[in-house]
């Protein structure tokens, strides 16, 4: 085959690929709450907090979920039951919390909140057991002192009671309150995307990473994944930086970027697990190094079942499409987290550390 003919074959393929990418746009709030059935609540208590993602299926029950857990220092609850070979197929909420392993207590508060509403896995007699998988991270933005508070039962209860649809507050809130990322302030970020075939994918992350989300010049790795003008005129950092403290010592239990991905498609547990694995690539692309021995990185996926898989075409192709979109949404949510985070007394925000990159942001 002559080169010219090869080009003729390849170019239309490229056009199709990039064309479909351009057809993507963020949802109304550019948040995980753009996925029908998803609501988010934060509880922020000083330098630690809790974020809950509630999920409701079309008939009021929970939704199928999956998880991948690749960081080396996890703190988790109820991840065993999410394995596809295990019984329970409905998840009612995902809790992300600060407070290291102590913060797992927040899930009990979320369980109480949901039980009071009659939401959970039915176990007979009208009783329910809410299914609330959870991951925690270690708050490091405490400026050398111990954390003023750690998320407990009440933190989970408050986050659950505060959960709403609509816009999601980002930055130094909820599970991201105590987050640090590569020497700058971490936090909560969210993003969403609507695909031409009606699939909606949203992500919410709590960034608290041993690795950095920016390269040697200070440019955020995932900035090129911007949809529209969502990063609001973020520009090149040009290597100009101000007072970035050395990254805090790593080691077991020291950090953890935890995430929730949601889609409006009806998923099986196996499909949700596969999408979780693909979505986790979004963490890999936005933070380097990721999934270290000291990171707790855990990523959950929820499918709220507003679109039947059968109406969308080949299942494997749809799973790949969702997984691809999810990875990008996770990366974008990490950028939003860094751009939304505010400086603390000991931790500069990304925009304070790299003012050139943010000079045009409104």
């Amino acid at each position, binding site marked *: 085959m002559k080169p010219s003919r090869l080009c003729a074959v390849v170019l239309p393929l490229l056009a199709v690929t990039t064309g479909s990418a351009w057809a993507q746009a963020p949802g109304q709030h550019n948040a995980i709450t753009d996925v029908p059935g998803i609501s988010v609540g934060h509880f922020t208590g000083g330098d630690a907090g809790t974020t809950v993602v509630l999920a409701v299926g079309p008939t009021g029950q929970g939704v199928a979920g999956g998880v991948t857990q690749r960081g080396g*220092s*996890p703190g*988790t*609850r*109820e991840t*065993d*039951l999410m394995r596809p070979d295990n019984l329970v197929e409905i998840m009612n909420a995902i809790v992300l919390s600060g407070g290291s*392993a*102590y913060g797992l207590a927040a899930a009990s508060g979320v369980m109480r909140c949901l039980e009071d509403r009659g939401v959970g896995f039915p176990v*007979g007699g009208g009783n329910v057991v809410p299914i609330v998988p959870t991951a925690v991270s270690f708050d490091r933005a405490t400026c050398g002192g111990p954390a003023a508070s750690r998320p407990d039962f009440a933190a989970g209860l408050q986050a659950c009671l505060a959960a709403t649809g609509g816009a999601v507050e980002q930055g130094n809130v909820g599970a991201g309150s105590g987050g640090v990322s590569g020497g700058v302030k971490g936090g909560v970020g969210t993003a969403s995307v609507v695909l031409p075939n009606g699939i909606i994918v949203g992500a919410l992350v709590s960034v608290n990473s041993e690795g950095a989300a920016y390269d040697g010049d200070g440019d955020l790795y995932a900035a090129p994944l911007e949809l529209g003008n969502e990063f609001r005129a973020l520009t090149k950092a040009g290597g100009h930086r101000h007072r970035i403290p050395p990254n805090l010592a790593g080691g077991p239990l020291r950090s953890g970027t935890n995430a929730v991905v949601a889609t409006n498609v009806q998923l099986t547990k196996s499909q949700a697990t596969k999408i979780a694995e693909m979505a986790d690539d979004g963490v890999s692309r936005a933070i380097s190094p990721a999934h270290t021995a000291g990171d707790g990185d855990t990523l959950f996926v929820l499918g709220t079942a507003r679109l039947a898989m059968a109406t969308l075409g080949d299942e494997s192709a749809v799973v790949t499409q969702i997984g691809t979109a999810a990875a990008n949404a996770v990366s974008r949510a990490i950028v939003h987290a860094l751009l939304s985070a505010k400086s603390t007394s000991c931790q500069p925000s990304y925009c304070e550390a790299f003012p050139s990159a943010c000079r045009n942001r409104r």
Partner: protein
Amino acid sequence: MQLHTALGGMLTLMAVASAALAQTLPQTPGPKNAITDVPGIEVGHYTASSGSGGMTGTTAVIARGGATAGVTQRGGAPGTRETDLLRSEKAIGTAHAVVLSGGSAYGLAAADGVMTCLESQGVGMPVANGAIVPIVPSAILFDPGRCAPFNFRPDASFGTNACRAATNGPVQMGNVGAGAGARSGGVKGGVGTASAVLSNGVVVGAIVAVNSAGRTFDAVTGQFFAGYTLGNSDAAVATALAAPEAQRDELLRATTIAVVATNVRLTKAQANKLAQMADDGLARAIRPAHGIGDGDTVFALATGTMTETPNITQIGAAAADALSRAIIRAIVAADGIHVSACNVDSYCDLFPQRCRH
């Protein structure tokens, strides 16, 4: 010809070697016949009664000095905490306690109380700024709503109380701690423990809360499926009584959760292997086991006071038998409950000849 001879010799050597490996060492129960015979292991129960026949509770197995830990999770309906960090490739290799609780997933709150109890005692993994984080994996079983309101369940205070009650002394069995509200194949379940001291000085112990859909004994004769692990102390006594079938809710929502421990120093991967082999003791003692409605989870702890190179197969085999024995001892120790409308027979109610001593 020569090749054949050489091969034959090699095969014989391999056969001898594998026989030696597989051979279980002579063993006797430890002085307490309990998991607390393992140096460095303490156990505390907290038990609550509803007054209407309902019981629930929490059992804390504490390794104050830290223990290398592993887990296997084979039941289909688990409720767990901190099992991810026990996987061999994860960074944290030490656990300070394992918490077993009733209360279904709500009972996972008990681990919070054990964490704060251990923190107040300075037991935990050092992190930043002088702070510590106790590593406390946990598993729960389903007992809510049995002869009690559905919200009669363990909370964080149960963990605190179980942790404060922990000692290295004899361990109470039967209707206590995590096994207080347990049932097993139509009879009362409970907590059991057992230990073995091997002739080379290895100590292995097991503690279990038996709450199984499957049964532990032949319904007609009462003979325990894993009775052979008890040696000669359990002479067969046939009876014509038939045991009741498990209730439907027990079939759907059960769970047997256990901890095995040894004084041998193990790597995390070896601790995970130990948990897997110990789980065979559960399979031999309960039929069926690991069903879709069971949350069966087995943890392993290695306190490491004995530093000789471990023979993991011997330790695993002893742990499996110790777990089988602990399960039988749980069923024998359990008391029937007969409070107004709440009636659950114990094994010994059904087969008194087997329980005379």
